């Protein structure tokens, strides 16, 4: 389970950034008082346009960023007090992360298993299962730099799952992928959901959200504009379809801010 309470993240602006943004403010608030809960066996989707604060929120959950204020519980573990223990529960996958091109998939998975303290016997069993599942045996000893995008994505998934995380964070996992490679991610989300894992993923693709999520959070300019189940969202819709409703919510915030 993930419990985020009153999360705030501020970044200090450099002189160059202040000049570019045409502001005198020394701080910029990327996430502004966000609270939500993701439950086991459910998929929580964080939806928002580019620069909304989705990635920053997910990076705080993954303990890469420390929140300016607020608290995070990962499976009951205080992620701010015990970041290492919290990280051990998390599998983190983003669409734009690279892999070590000079290693082979086998070596890379072994390395991350070591980092997560997975025992050798367990590691071999899980690796075998994952390699079977994603049909990776053929290229497991090839350098990652020589693999196709689809193959690399499979390696990324194995890397995320090798320590059997109970909480999985996906940050725009399908960005830049073709339909077949995206299908692997969608299958992974569905399988993890069936296994009772807690899943949170960010996206700006409404169709993907509709396909996968149980619970929805719409983020814009660091604020959570909507937090509820997919059914509630659909029942409260004022626009003819999900994408139009998403755009309507974002634009109405713009109008409110303008007033």
């Amino acid at each position, binding site marked *: 389970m993930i419990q985020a309470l009153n999360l705030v993240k501020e*970044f*200090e602006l450099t002189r160059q950034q202040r000049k570019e943004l045409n502001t005198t403010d020394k701080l910029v608030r990327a996430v502004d008082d966000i609270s939500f809960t993701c439950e086991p066996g459910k998929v929580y989707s964080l939806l928002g346009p580019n620069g909304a604060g989705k990635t920053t929120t997910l*990076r705080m959950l*993954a*303990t*890469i*960023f*420390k929140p300016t204020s607020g608290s995070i519980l990962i499976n009951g573990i205080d992620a701010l007090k015990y*970041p*290492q*223990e919290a*990280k*051990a529960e*998390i599998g*983190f996958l*983003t669409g*734009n*992360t*690279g*892999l*070590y*091109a*000079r*290693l082979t998939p086998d*070596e890379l998975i072994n*390395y*991350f298993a*070591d*980092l*997560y*303290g997975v025992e050798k016997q367990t590691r071999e069993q899980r690796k075998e299962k994952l390699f079977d599942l994603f049909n990776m045996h053929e290229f497991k000893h090839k350098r990652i730099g020589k693999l196709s995008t689809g193959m690399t994505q499979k390696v990324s998934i194995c*890397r995320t799952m090798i320590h059997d995380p109970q909480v999985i964070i996906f940050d725009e996992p399908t960005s830049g992928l073709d339909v077949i490679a995206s299908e692997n991610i969608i299958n992974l989300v569905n399988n993890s959901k069936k296994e009772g894992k807690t899943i949170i993923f960010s996206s700006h693709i409404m169709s993907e959200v509709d396909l996968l999520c149980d619970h929805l959070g719409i983020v814009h300019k660091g604020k959570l504009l909507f937090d509820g189940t997919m059914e509630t969202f659909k029942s409260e819709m004022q626009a003819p379809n999900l994408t139009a409703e998403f755009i309507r919510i974002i634009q109405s915030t713009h109008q409110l801010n303008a007033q």
Partner: protein
Amino acid sequence: MIFSVFKKELKDTLRDKRTLRTMLLIPLLAFPLIMTVSSRITAHFEAEEAEETIKIGLVKSGNKELNNKISGAPKMMGDKKLIYFDDSTSLMKAVQLDSIDFGVCSANGFEQALREQRPAITRVFYKATSLNAEQRAAGFLDAVNQQYKDQRYRELRLSKEKLEPLKITYQNIASNKEMLGKLAGGILPYIFIAFGFVGCMYPAIDLFTGEKERKTIETLLTSPVQRWKLLVGKMGVIVLSGLTAATCSLIGLYFSIQFIDTAKNQEIMQIVNGILSPGFIIMMYALLIPLTIFFAGVMIPITIRAKTFKEAQSIITPLNFVLVLPAMVGFIPGVELNWMTACIPVINVVLSTKELIAGTLEPGLLIISFAVMTMLAAAAVLLSHKQFDRETNILE
């Protein structure tokens, strides 16, 4: 956990061709290549010079005796060809045009001065831009001058020995080892520092800026490993790479002296073999390990902040001059290791290594040098840790 990070980073580094080149190949081949090429060039020039006939210009109307004495200069001075000119102006012009190596001309009143047993002015025209022209002219004229001197001793009925009240003999009591340490000892730490720095550079950029550029850092930071452990694991590879590069350069140097025909020097080899004891190697690495950690510690914050490989390289390359330049102090005669120089980073390593080779290193000064470098290395590591801990530096 640190070992897992170290092992992976080492494997990754050893598969990077660019790092392999700077860590192993270039240091290993640098000295054999430099020595082979330079010794061949030197041998070629020496042979050419030995075969070369020196062209000496004389003035026809000049003092005949002087001209004859130059003409009769011993054969050991080299083959010569005398070319006569009408006057000193045409002689100077020939020197100017490089058609002769140097010209000799007696000044007005030359004969009278000789008769009156005063110094007779002899002018030598040469171009300082012509290699060794002055030395070769001096060789010939010293021989001629000696003939005149002997002539005067006879005329004045003087004994040569009576005019030399002191017969000074210089006796060098420094051992060969000491001599090598003081004269050539500066080169060893210089090599180590120069190659050690370059050896650290590429892995440092690859393991930090490279992780940012390739977008692998985010995944690594989500693992439950404390950042200081990641830093130490990576730093271990950078330090090892620096030490390997430096060691390879020394191995290259050793094999050049030992095996390359043109550079082979048995005398130096005997001294070097005498110096290379386990104790010497331990003490040398005791100085060089903190130095390499210091290099890594200085580079890491830069590579963490840099956004691209090029940016990191453009900052570290000039830093190379700042840190490696003090190593040249080892070549300056008279700069010795003392309580003050032992406290100056980098310079203390150079001077300590020099003393170590000469076998004259005081343990107290070694301890100070080691302590200073260790403290500095620790400060550099702390600085690296601080930078690596800053979330904005890591991901942007």
